[in-house]
């Protein structure tokens, strides 16, 4: 008996060591491609081409970043993305709160009908073309309203907010109502302070979504000066993509086109993820809660 339990102990110890190693390796593997790009962005293009870059910058230099910022286009694109993200997120939160508050009240007239009306749009998702035609006929092309208006509210986040509000104790609100506060005052002065954690996590979700999205911009924004950072990056990657195909075709000249942008592309990638990495520590405090509330459907 004693021996078997000790055998178990050793087996478990080994299992535990293996477990820690496996998890450590998989998380490093998840990080590695990003790390590699970081190293490449600071390396000379000679070193990248020669395959000398693995974990650390080789022949450290800022050449790629200098080239990237040279023509100022990337700065304009960054500014555009910041505008899209800030205003988009503010509009999202305004609409989400305004909609979630009344919907969280059981006494709301026609509540179940409204909820069905909203839920149905999650089930039947209409295609790209009708939305495109709508945005075009509203004359929103090449304005950022073409991005903001069709995405004013994410139905999923609306339900998360509503579920959270439903979980708040009703007594607080009732006592405020007793003191003569109207719906608007209750919402702004009583509910909002209580909702701070969920407001924080939903804002971050919305903001990350705006920062990362590129397809809508690709569809609706045609002017080069209005382009977002992600679309600039997308175009850069597609270029490389095209030259890679030429390369596959065996033409010699293509190699030059392919080799030059590799470091610059890495630099652009690093610039595009840096803001995400900066908010990530704040994000991770909140997102698990957001996900768990979302999974408890109300």
């Amino acid at each position: 008996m004693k021996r078997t339990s000790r055998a178990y102990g050793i087996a478990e110890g080994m299992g535990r060591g293996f477990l820690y190693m496996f998890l450590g390796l998989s998380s490093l593997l998840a990080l590695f491609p990003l790390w590699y790009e970081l190293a490449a962005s600071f390396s000379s293009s000679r070193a990248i081409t020669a395959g000398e870059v693995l974990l650390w910058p080789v022949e450290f230099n800022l050449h790629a970043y200098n080239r990237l910022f040279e023509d100022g286009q990337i700065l304009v694109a960054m500014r555009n993305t910041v505008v899209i993200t800030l205003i988009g997120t503010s509009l999202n939160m305004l609409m989400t709160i305004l909609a979630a508050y009344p919907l969280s009240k059981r006494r709301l007239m026609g509540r179940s009908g409204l909820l069905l009306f909203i839920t149905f749009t999650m089930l039947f998702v209409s295609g790209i073309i009708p939305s495109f035609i709508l945005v075009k006929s509203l004359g929103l092309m090449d304005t950022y309203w073409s991005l903001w208006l069709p995405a004013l509210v994410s139905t999923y986040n609306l339900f998360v907010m509503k579920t959270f509000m439903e979980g708040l104790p009703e007594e607080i609100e009732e006592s405020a109502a007793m003191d003569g506060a109207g719906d608007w005052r209750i919402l702004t002065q009583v509910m909002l302070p209580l909702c701070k954690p969920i407001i924080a996590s939903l804002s971050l979700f919305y903001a990350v979504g705006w920062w990362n999205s590129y397809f809508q911009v690709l569809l609706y924004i045609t002017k080069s000066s209005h382009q977002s950072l992600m679309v600039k990056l997308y175009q850069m990657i597609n270029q490389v993509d095209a030259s890679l195909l030429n390369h596959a075709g065996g033409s010699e000249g293509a190699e030059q086109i392919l080799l030059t942008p590799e470091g610059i592309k890495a630099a652009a990638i690093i610039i595009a993820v840096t803001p995400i990495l900066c908010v990530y520590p704040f994000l991770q405090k909140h997102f698990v809660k957001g996900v768990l509330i979302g999974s408890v459907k109300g």
Partner: protein
Amino acid sequence: MLLPIILFYVLFKYAPMAGEVIAFKNYRFADGIWGSDWVGLRHFHMLFESVDFWRVLRNTLLLNVYSLVFGFPVPILLALLLNEVRKEWYKRTVQNLLYLPHFISWVVLGGIVIAVLSPSTGVVNLILKQAFGIEPIYFMADSAWWPVVYTLSGIWREAGWGTILYLAAMASIDPLLYEAAKIDGASKWRQIWHITLPGIRSTIAILLILRMGHMMDVGLEQTLVLQNQSVLDVADVISTYVYRVGLQNMNYSYTTALGLFQSLIGFLLVVSVNQLIRRFGERGLW
């Protein structure tokens, strides 16, 4: 308070649904939706007779099947492992590293994937060459490799994130069960098999069924950034086809018919899946 939100849903969610009517018309932008001629089911006939339709439908379903078969078990496995980690800081670090890709744009992730897999400068091919002497593989331009890249990149982005719900379900398992099992001399494996897995069974079932409800959806942003001309035979899915043929070649009505087909099948899948969940005695989605 509710007026803006109702307006929003009517204008930007329900109006496009009404706009699906152009699938039965010959839509031209100059004529408008109402001014265009009715053509009945002509676009659907054309669709079902075209080779392209069957190709994009097959690709859409296949990519989903790959993601389901290879991608679905990964978060469960990771969650089981994470659940055994006793050192809090280690667990949290691993979790944060695994969650990170979920927050990064597909443009960035796709760019990284393409760069890392590049046949001439990509680190993967360099390692393969130096360690195993394998000649460079054109991962992105090879129809056999592309679905592998697609599936693995999907796992890279979402597997860590997918563990959250499983870990929450595991956290709600009664610790007394493990105590009792330990006293009875049950090994770690037996504890996982007889306590942890049954404890998350309903979570697995629900997530699996939900996943089945989305067999017609393929992440447009992921596919678009990863695909290129030479792999369209395996990488062209319904949504990218609609984008390319519909918007870039302005074939509005024909591709709306395809989009409508996708929406309808998707709708039927989700609704029947919800019935299924209810039949299992779990709470449905609505």
